[in-house]
């Protein structure tokens, strides 16, 4: 391999053309010229994050509300309904009267 001129661009170009295959083997340039990096996602990142998290947030808050409704609200309504369903005011009054808590009526002693 003789290189007559090494300083001018034309000489360099001639060198590269002649020894292209050798250079490609040495430098893997051929594979790199066919493969390229995927362009990173640079837009819509916040929107993507919101589209992921907001439905989860709404679902969790609805679940918390449902848990409160069926764990606290409905049992309380049922408790009051059950208490008054079979409530005997006269019997309860007599019990309290015999316990002596009233000022307007004294216990009968029964």
């Amino acid at each position: 391999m003789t290189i007559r001129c090494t300083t001018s661009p034309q000489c360099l170009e001639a060198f590269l053309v002649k020894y292209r295959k050798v250079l490609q083997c040495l430098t893997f340039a051929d594979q790199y010229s066919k493969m390229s990096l995927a362009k990173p996602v640079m837009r819509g990142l916040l929107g993507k994050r919101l589209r992921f998290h907001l439905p989860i947030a709404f679902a969790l808050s609805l679940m918390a509300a449902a848990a409160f409704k069926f764990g606290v609200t409905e049992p309380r309504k049922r408790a009051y309904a059950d208490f008054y369903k079979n409530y005997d005011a006269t019997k309860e009054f007599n019990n309290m009267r015999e316990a002596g808590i009233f000022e307007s009526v004294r216990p009968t002693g029964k």
Partner: protein
Amino acid sequence: MAHPSQLGFQDAASPVMEELLHFHDHALMIVLLISTLVLYIIVAMVSTKLTNKYILDSQEIEIVWTILPAVILILIALPSLRILYLMDEVNDPHLTIKAVGHQWYWSYEYTDYEELAFDSYMVPTQDLLPGQFRLLETDHRMVVPVESPTRILVSAEDVLHSWAVPSLGIKMDAVPGRLNQTAFITSRPGLFYGQCSEICGANHSFMPIVVEAVPLKHFEEWSTLLLQDA
């Protein structure tokens, strides 16, 4: 009455208080819904490596977070207004009692048929009987017939007071020179305690209220006895 380490309301002893309890549960459920949503969003916003997160333009989300809060407010307002008007109803009460605030006791006047009036002072701690409650008992209780609509006219002789009984869902300011009207029905017999709820001087905390609900027959016997003693 209240018990130690209590967080919620006292047990309801009137239909209005039951409605107030259920409305409070409804409002608290909505508060929990919004708080969970906001907490999740806060955690999601602070735990991100994204830096350009504050300039956001979206017509869809603007519409959602305008309409949704309006709907939530309507869901709160409708039951609230219903209870407000329910509390304002005074349907042909069987009895009218005047509760007058003084420094520092309440006086009750039953003037529908006869002139029956008495004062109600707090029982001092050293005079309490076993089983009685400190700072809540009075020497003379306001006796009412159970399950009977009762009208209360609240006023004051000197400074502002407030006649409050939590288990009946009642609180009415006692204003000198003014008659404020409220009404209640007790759902069951028993004793219902309350305290003055407007600062009125040194012994503001020591002028409690006790409502004693008994069957009508015993109420009539009690009022007859009191009139005879007077």
